[in-house]
């Protein structure tokens, strides 16, 4: 199959089109706007629905409405816009309908800037909206994965009646790489038995997230949780590099993951036995895989473009039993491989400890640098 040379944002858009997305709703925000722009001509050209909404608030509710019909539906945004969508995400989770969202993260908090960051991790992975629910979250680290995981996101969303988020940052959204696009999937013609699409010759249906009776809400929440256990059992994905003989490991996802790969290769060239674990599903998190791998390790380094949000999940996975250090650049700053290499050297040099918190030691190191 011929390779296309595409910008992350546009590759995701085309991948969604080929996965059979019937409707896209969005609102312009850098650094994801190319996705909206691409859809604005591509969707009408195929006779599919596209609306540039008045806000992300309206966007997510257009998504909500369209998804209630059983069609494949998506939106995309970047951090501040995603915050505005959180109300709707909670409703969608509570209504148990499939939706695909793309968050192209940028520097924050607040209006922040438009540079790449990974500061939405907690929002997307650990909540964001109110109430008890989980999103499936896929974190690509190159354009090919962005394509593949967008297609996968639709399948997982439908399989688990869940919000599935493709979580990336401005770097991957804006960069171009070769990728292979999947063939065009036929549009969905069979719809699930919950789909609201007109009660023709059948009992009426309704979709809602309201449950005034706490006992009934509890039943719903248990159902969501049971389904989540299925997701945890079946869908955890991650990628390992140079881990066979590794005594040390870097854990990093998305852009941080690929930047760390460069650093790990450079460290290997210096003879340091270090590998890389790159979570692909950051939710569900590869907890067991990291715990298992950590048993053979003398030390770990978590690298993020946030102040250590995934770090807490790694520490929970190793139950703080493995000496761990943290390195992050924040606010839209992107780490260079050199910086990560320096951190790997520092980790190996020691002292290796499970005392204290890696974030505190990182803050001390950063205080000397900035």
């Amino acid at each position, binding site marked *: 199959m011929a390779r296309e040379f595409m910008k992350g944002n546009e590759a995701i858009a085309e991948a969604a089109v080929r996965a059979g997305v019937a409707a896209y709703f969005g609102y312009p925000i850098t650094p994801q706007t190319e996705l909206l722009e691409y859809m604005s001509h591509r969707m009408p050209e195929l006779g599919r629905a596209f609306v540039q909404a008045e806000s992300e608030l309206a966007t997510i*509710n257009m998504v909500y409405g369209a998804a209630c019909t059983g069609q494949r539906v998506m939106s995309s945004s970047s951090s501040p816009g995603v915050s505005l969508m959180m109300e709707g995400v909670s409703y969608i989770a509570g209504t148990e309908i499939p939706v695909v969202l793309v968050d192209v993260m940028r520097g924050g908090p607040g209006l922040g800037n438009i540079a790449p960051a990974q500061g939405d991790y907690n929002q997307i992975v650990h909540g964001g909206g109110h109430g008890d629910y989980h999103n499936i979250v896929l974190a690509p680290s190159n354009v090919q994965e962005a394509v593949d995981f967008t297609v996968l996101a639709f399948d997982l969303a439908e399989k688990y009646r869940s919000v599935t988020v493709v979580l990336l940052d401005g770097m991957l959204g804006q960069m171009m790489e070769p990728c292979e696009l999947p063939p065009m999937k036929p549009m969905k013609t069979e719809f699930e038995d919950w789909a609201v699409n007109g009660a023709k010759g059948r009992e009426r249906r309704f979709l809602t997230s309201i449950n005034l009776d706490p006992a009934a809400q509890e039943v719903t929440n248990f159902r969501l949780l049971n389904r989540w256990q299925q997701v945890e059992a079946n869908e955890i994905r991650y990628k390992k590099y140079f881990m066979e003989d590794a005594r040390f490991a870097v854990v990093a996802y998305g852009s941080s993951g690929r930047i760390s790969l460069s650093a790990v290769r450079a460290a290997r060239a210096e003879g340091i036995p270090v590998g890389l674990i790159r979570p692909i599903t950051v939710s569900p998190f590869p907890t067991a895989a990291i715990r298992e791998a950590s048993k053979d390790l003398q030390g770990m380094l978590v690298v993020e473009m946030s102040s250590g949000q995934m770090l807490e999940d790694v520490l929970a996975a190793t139950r703080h039993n493995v000496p761990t250090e943290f390195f992050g650049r924040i606010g839209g700053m992107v780490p260079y491989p050199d910086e990560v290499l320096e951190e790997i050297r520092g980790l190996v040099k020691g002292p290796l400890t499970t005392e204290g918190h890696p974030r505190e030691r990182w803050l001390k190191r950063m205080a000397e640098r900035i």
Partner: protein
Amino acid sequence: MTTMQTENETLVYARPESLTNVSTHYCPGCTHGIAHRLIAEVIDEMGIRERMIGVASVGCSVFAYNYFNFDFVQAPHGRAPAMATGVKRVLPDKMVITYQGDGDMASIGMAEIVHAATRGENITVFFINNTNYGMTGGQMAPTTLPGQKTTSSIHGRDVETQGYPIRAAELLSQLDGSSYVVRRSLNDPKNVRLAKKAIRVALEVQARGLGFSMIEFLSICPTNWGMTPEASKKWLEEKMIPYYPLGDYKVHPAVAQIKI
């Protein structure tokens, strides 16, 4: 026990098929029931029940989907027009309605209703104006009249600090995207008949793909107003109608052609 003799009698009144066979949770005297019934009757008359998709809002009518006997979704507060947009865009052949109160549509959902109207979304909005937030117990709404007492304007709405009421029909009629925007009242039989006629027109507008339609219904809320239903109707006539004049605010020329 007596057996009812129906032979040789004509059935003149029955529950519309578009209403479910349950009692509503609405307060005695509330006009939500009238609005529900009128909408259901028109849907039956048009034979479109199986094509209907309703969007319920947040407020007293949050459970509207329990009463209408067709497919329904339930929107977050204020977002019904956005949700309806989503439904309609993927199912353009279905009939999509929202049913919203004044807090929902004219306050928290003002952006969504204005933009749905300005896009000319081919949906129908039923807007219940009873000058207060009913479900939460009678707080000031964007439609509360100047001087009107509510639980969050206990000395009467002071326009100096709390602003003026919003006339939703007039406002939406100003948008080029809207095709049919009218205000009706549910206070007496004549107005109820006119309201039903407007519902028919609004749904015909959508069925013919003519764009955005909205009916504002002046409604009473005896419980939160602290009045009997009779006194409430009188208050509606004397206070609401002068502030919210009944009439057709936007009738697109193509809509004016509709004969029913």
